[in-house]
């Protein structure tokens, strides 16, 4: 069940399969939005995607691990405490994004602005692929493969920067041409607030990854001690989960006005 129970190639393969599922579901989501734009269906697809990421990439089940027998000052027990702390932080953060979604549905209702669909799908793909490599990085270090971990972390970081360039560098400029302007009306206000808040989290994730990558190069992590990597990975996947809901809310649900 857990990553540790699998040997390395099986764990990496699992990452590939989950990525394939997520890719297919994203394609399905896009197809649904074109052919059968039902918000409930889109929500179900998003929930399913988020569930996959949270279980297979973020390993939420690790929270239930029984480690009461371990000494309180051991690395493993402290990692358990850290993990709970991180998940509580994500729960707290989820309320921000939940409130932003509530704001979007309150102010936009069942409409959405005209945005560049190709670019939207492209940045979504980039983030999804980055999540795949993030999982690969964590799996690698969990099995003691430092080189694989460093390479995958570097790729994740580059994809994260690509996502930022895509959203802030391109989409924010293109949206202005579509009359989505920050201080003109709520169309602009909500769009820039949601993408901006998410991009801010991606940026902090990239910084976090950089620290992990640099410390990893100096040999800070091993198969037994890699909480820093796990934390960066769980945080990164969380940012991906947020986008799993933000993407349909911004690009797919509602009629274009």
């Amino acid at each position, binding site marked *: 069940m857990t990553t540790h129970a699998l040997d390395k190639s099986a764990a990496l393969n699992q990452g590939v399969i989950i990525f394939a599922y997520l890719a297919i579901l994203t394609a399905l989501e896009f197809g649904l939005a074109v052919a059968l734009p039902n918000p409930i269906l889109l929500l179900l697809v998003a929930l399913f995607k988020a569930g996959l990421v949270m279980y297979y990439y973020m390993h939420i089940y690790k929270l239930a691990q029984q480690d009461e027998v371990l000494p309180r000052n051991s690395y493993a027990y402290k990692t358990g405490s850290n993990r709970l702390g991180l998940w509580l932080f994500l729960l707290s953060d989820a309320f921000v994004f939940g*409130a932003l979604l509530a704001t979007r549905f309150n102010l936009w209702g069942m409409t959405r602005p005209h945005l560049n669909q190709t670019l939207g799908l492209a940045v979504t793909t980039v983030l999804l692929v980055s999540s795949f490599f993030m999982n690969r990085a964590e799996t690698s270090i969990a099995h003691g493969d430092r080189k694989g971990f460093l390479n995958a972390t570097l790729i994740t970081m580059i994809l994260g920067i690509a996502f930022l360039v895509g959203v802030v560098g391109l989409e924010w400029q293109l949206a202005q041409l579509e009359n989505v302007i920050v201080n003109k009306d709520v169309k602009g*206000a909500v769009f820039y607030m949601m993408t901006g808040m998410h991009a801010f989290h991606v940026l902090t994730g990239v910084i976090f990854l950089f*620290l992990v990558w640099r410390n990893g190069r100096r040999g800070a992590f091993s198969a037994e001690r890699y909480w820093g990597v796990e934390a960066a990975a769980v945080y990164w996947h969380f940012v991906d989960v947020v986008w799993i809901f933000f993407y349909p809310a911004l690009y797919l649900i509602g009629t274009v006005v």
Partner: protein
Amino acid sequence: MKQLYSIPLVRGLVWLVIGLAAGIAFVVGIRFALELPVMGRYLFTEHAWVFGGVVGTLAFLAKHGVMDGWFKVWKGEEEAEHHEDPEGWIKYLGPSLDHKVIGIQYTVTAIILFLVGGLFALIFRTELAFEGQQFLTPDQYNTMMSLHGMVMIVSILLGISGLINYLVPLLIGAPDMAFPRLNAFSYWISVPAAIWLLLSMPLGGVETGWTGYPPLSALPTKVGQQMFFLGVFVAGWSSILGALNLIVTVVRMRARGMTAFRMPIFVWSAIATSLIALTATQLIGLSFQMVMFQRLFGMGFFDPAKGGNPILFQHLFWFYSHPAVYVFILPGLGVVSELLPVFVRKPLFGYRWVAMSSLGIALVGFIVWAHHMFTSGMNEYLRVPFMYSTLLVAVPTGVKFFSWVATIWQGKIPSPMPTAFLFVVGSILVFLMGGLSGPPNAIVTTDLHLHDTYWIVGHFHNTFFGGFVFPFFAALYYWFPKATGRRLDERLGRWHFWLMASSFFVLSLGMMRVGLLGMRRRIFDYDPELGFQTTHIVMTVAAFLIALSVVIFFVNLVRSLRYGEAVIGNLWNSRSPEWQVPSPMPAHNYSAPLVVVGEPYDYGLPGSRYVDFAPAKVGD
């Protein structure tokens, strides 16, 4: 000079000012380059002040020393989670990682803010004593009234953090909180928060009341409003991170044998409080941030002219701010349930029900927010469901009252009554008034009349005094010997209690009376024809008497720190683990791990035990 700078707090404040100046200079430079107006009504534009505030906060945290441990970890260096504090009072100004030091830092900061907020109250209360304008301008009145609210709220949040930080690790037999560095960070981030909150005064003040509703708060007239939002936003992070730390501590650090239903009841209420603070606080942060952005960047979230919706702000705001009142009162009610059995020498009646009632209040609290909005013009079909969900809160609250009454029933009332016990009984009575004046505001038909009157002001002052202020003082009188090894003076304590309790009843009943007669809240002046001029004078006198009782408390505090009766033993004859070891508590709490072997509140049952101190194992 150099010695002064070596004090972490001073160093932090110096860098806060430098950061503020640098942030302002940066924005001024950019605006100058873009040929935008550089200067504003309050010296600089809003953008400059807000950005300066953000940079100042970060500079404070970076240079104060509270983040040094993290910086080392980020650099990949090894860093111990414990370090020795310097001797003497200087440790309270530095980034100590000891939960007891942090608890005292929180408590002292809370008391300082309590004084500031109380001073504001006295000022505008005096203005209200007589109709017509006395000595405040309407703008100054609004600022005093708004900041009284928000400063007191931040004070309460820090006060409960103080209680929780100091007590919970002791009560559960842990050496410290789960994340000591995060703990220190949560405290120190509240210092810049308080500074920004108070800086709003010279920058034009705040005119919206503590709720900061747009469209009024979105009018770009006063920079003070922005600093108010910034201060609350930063203080919110203190609350969120502290709550996170507390939950992990309780889940992961309990002594062996301490199952969920053998935890002290205060720990249950701390958990309930933290669940709210952890999650809901994000929404007040976000809603204030959105108003800030509306002012800074013209984003029209709450501006009807741009398709925005002011009611949306109220939903986001109250989603936190109603549960927040349970954040304020739950630890206080926990203190009452914790202390009562000790004083009356009887088991706490219905322990499990009381534990669950805290969680019940916290969870129901998430679905009641719109009862603040019955008159706001929100969809009418929302009214009745929110009315019923609000009335539901009375059920778990009632459970607590029954438990208290049944615990006192046939108990041994101590004689003479210690001050801590007086404050416990005072909390029950005052909170009863607060509780009973609640349902009329929850019921739509009566609330339409009571909304925004002084009745509401009377109601929530009763809940906050009964749910926080009285229990807070009870806790101070009760645990002061644990923290200092000395006891607060009982004679001054009794003066403090009787003066505060009696004047508070006069004040709050006066508030309810003028409210029912038609006095609106948040107004600067009133018509003498309404017939409550005398009541206002009486209320003002009562307010000053409360202030006098607080002065007595301070005299007591300062005197007892030096001359108080030395107490190192189990002063209250309590079963709780922290009283089984000598006061004051040593740096890493219990020298030997303790084991829980029985029920926490079996007072008066012969042969029952709660904790055992296991001999320290070799190499553990």
